[in-house]
């Protein structure tokens, strides 16, 4: 323990701790742009500078270790002036189009210039109008708005081990871009959207197209059906002033109806369906000597990563489509019949915590008899924008249930929204399938929480099954390498590209820190704790779907509609 003095106040800190960490803990705000939680500081942006007695220059607090007796001024006139100048320089060639920017009102640069009292353009940099990169189906890059903080580069490389983008050129020619300045679509980007989540400005956003959705809603010939993913109900509230970690499922359903959707379904239903199909596939592989360990396939960014980086491991991927696609398929093929509707008349919109789902939905292998499973995908953030556009206040709706049959769900399906949740749900059902009995302890603590790699050994009717849940693609790479090197004690691995799972997905509300992600996760655990139906195999409408249409898991019809195939992919610069 050391004692330091900050702004005349005595503060305790661990020697060697970074000053910024201490300041944050003490509730003392200094702005930062390049700083990232849980990562080594780069000291690139210099916004976090403070004055330390005895040191002539200003020091960046994010990269300054504290030691006994230091006297620090965080808001001396000199420090504040320096910060203001930095912001003014960043604004020198920044486009003045906040009004039209997707990040208007949620932009760090905007906030900081306002906090620091920037009221005029003091510097004017060379004007340049780089091209928007609209090549990706999920991600838009606007280099004009990039302030070169490097956060996206670090997330893509250090957290995702993809490194689709990097700094190119130098000096005034520095840019962040894929190799050869190419479009993201030809790079090795896996559409995870983590770069959007960390970008402080509007330089990275999702591909946003609403028009076809509104057209469908206003088209009397279309039946417009919406599904919302398990992780959406526990984050959408943040955009409407609800406490982080509030489950807003009821008001979300109500809002979606008010937006004009004819039917509101819950993707957690098809998460339950995935549990049955994937659980059966696992047992089948174990029984019949199939490829093990089996990898989950519900995260399209992860699947994309395997196809690009580990094509030799494709055989490990479960053949199950993701819940989003499964719900689209059963809506168009089964529900439509029950409703006496032509499948062509159904327009399926899904609301996802994810940008990669946009990519997934348009893959040719997701077509069935000329029809896509899902017609349009929007992120949680985009939904919030639409709701505001229509002048609705989500927080003040009267909660309603989603529509049956696909409004019914077990809390297992809901758990899909957090890393470890798919595993937990699958283990519950696999145990039941093998033993005919429910687990004594449905809660699988070992795969809960925010750790990147979580492992457990589970006794399923006398067979010891090794399972793991991994989130973040750099962690995924680690475990895949272990397996390639011969690790044999794991049979089933859940992979999610986004750290912590879909609750921290690339399409989720921006600016969630560690605590916020934890709160979102806890919200899902709370739903599970109190749920009347906790097992996927107890979902009544799911049983009906099997009785009336699919037969049994892995049936021919299941294979046709709910399973898919994969293939090697390559960046095509």
């Amino acid at each position, binding site marked *: 323990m050391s004692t330091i003095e900050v702004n005349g106040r005595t503060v305790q800190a661990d020697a060697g701790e970074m000053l910024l960490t201490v300041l944050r803990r003490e509730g003392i705000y200094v702005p930062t742009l390049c700083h990232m939680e849980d990562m080594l500081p780069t000291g690139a942006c210099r916004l976090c500078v403070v004055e330390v007695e005895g040191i002539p220059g200003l020091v960046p607090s994010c990269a300054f270790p504290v030691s006994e007796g230091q006297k620090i001024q965080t808001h001396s006139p000199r420090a504040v002036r320096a910060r203001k100048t930095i912001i003014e320089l960043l604004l020198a060639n920044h486009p003045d189009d906040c009004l039209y920017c997707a990040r208007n009102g949620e932009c760090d640069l905007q906030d900081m210039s306002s906090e620091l009292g920037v009221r005029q353009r003091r510097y004017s940099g060379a004007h340049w109008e780089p091209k928007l990169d609209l090549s990706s189906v999920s991600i838009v890059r606007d280099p004009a708005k990039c302030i070169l903080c490097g956060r996206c580069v670090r997330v893509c*490389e250090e957290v995702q081990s*993809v*490194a*689709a*983008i*990097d*700094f*190119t*050129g*130098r000096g005034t020619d520095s840019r962040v*871009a*894929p*190799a*050869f300045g190419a479009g993201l679509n030809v*790079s*090795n980007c896996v559409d995870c959207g983590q770069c959007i989540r960390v970008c402080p400005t509007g330089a990275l956003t999702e591909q946003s197209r609403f028009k076809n959705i509104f057209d469908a809603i206003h088209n009397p010939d279309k039946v417009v059906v919406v599904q919302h993913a398990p992780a959406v109900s526990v984050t959408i509230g943040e955009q409407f002033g609800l406490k982080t970690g509030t489950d807003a499922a009821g008001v979300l359903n109500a809002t979606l109806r008010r937006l004009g959707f004819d039917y509101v379904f819950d993707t957690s239903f098809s998460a339950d369906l995935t549990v049955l199909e994937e659980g059966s596939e696992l047992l089948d592989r174990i029984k019949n000597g199939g490829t093990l360990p089996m990898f989950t396939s519900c995260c399209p960014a992860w699947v994309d990563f395997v196809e690009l980086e580990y094509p030799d491991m494709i055989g490990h991927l479960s053949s199950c489509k993701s819940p989003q696609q499964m719900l689209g398929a059963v809506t168009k093929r089964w529900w439509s019949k029950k409703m006496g509707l032509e499948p062509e008349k159904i327009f399926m919109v899904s609301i996802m915590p994810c940008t990669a789902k946009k990519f997934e939905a348009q893959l040719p292998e997701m077509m069935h008899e000329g029809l896509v499973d899902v017609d349009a995908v929007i992120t949680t953030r985009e939904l919030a924008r639409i709701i505001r556009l229509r002048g609705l206040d989500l927080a003040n709706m009267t909660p309603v249930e989603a529509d049956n049959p696909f409004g019914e769900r077990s809390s297992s399906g809901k758990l899909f929204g957090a890393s470890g949740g798919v595993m937990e749900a699958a283990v519950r059902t696999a145990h039941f399938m093998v033993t005919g009995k429910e687990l004594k302890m449905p809660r699988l603590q070992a795969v809960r929480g925010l750790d990147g790699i979580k492992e457990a050994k589970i006794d399923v009717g006398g067979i010891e099954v090794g399972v793991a849940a991994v989130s973040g693609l750099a962690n995924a790479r680690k475990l895949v390498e272990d397996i390639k090197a011969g690790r044999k004690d794991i049979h089933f691995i859940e992979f999610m590209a986004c750290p912590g799972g879909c609750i921290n997905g690339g399409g989720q509300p921006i600016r969630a820190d560690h605590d916020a992600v934890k709160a979102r996760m806890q919200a899902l655990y709370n739903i599970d704790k109190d749920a009347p139906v906790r097992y996927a195999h107890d979902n009544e409408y799911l049983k009906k779907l099997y009785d009336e249409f699919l037969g049994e898991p892995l049936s021919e019809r299941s294979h046709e509609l709910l399973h898919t195939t994969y293939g090697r992919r390559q*960046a095509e*610069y």
Partner: protein
Amino acid sequence: MSTTDVSTNDIVGAPVATTVEDVLSRFSGGNREDLIPILQAVQNSTGHLSRESVLAVARHLNLPPSKVYGVATFYNQFRFQPLGKYHIQVCRGTACHVKGSAAVLESLKRILKVEEGQTTKDKLFSLEVVACIGACGLAPVISINGEFHAGVAPDRVAGILNVYRRRAKNG
């Protein structure tokens, strides 16, 4: 492209008839510290860093292509377009600078419609800026495939280029 068309003097770094694969086989360790030496060797052998060679280097070192490209673009010694039939080097050393080499460079860029490091559409000229060429007495100096042009005034640039254009036409 026949090798005689391309400058083979030391300043350009004599392209010899080797392939990227040959170069990579000389750096068999797959050592990431070799990145810059490898890029230099590839450029020396093939005249520039093509997409294919950047990708090959990335594969060889097991590095993401974005990293290799990022490093390569950081240094202005690397060029990403093949050399033209005539490779122009503009000296921007101190003596040439004092004698007005900036204006010479501007005039070259304007006439050829390329930036430094680039090659004209007709593949006739490529433009490179070099630090002192070691011919300060001739300042401002440009070298075209190793032939030195001394005391170049901006308004002489067009005439000099035309000499090479004619030469190209007459084979």
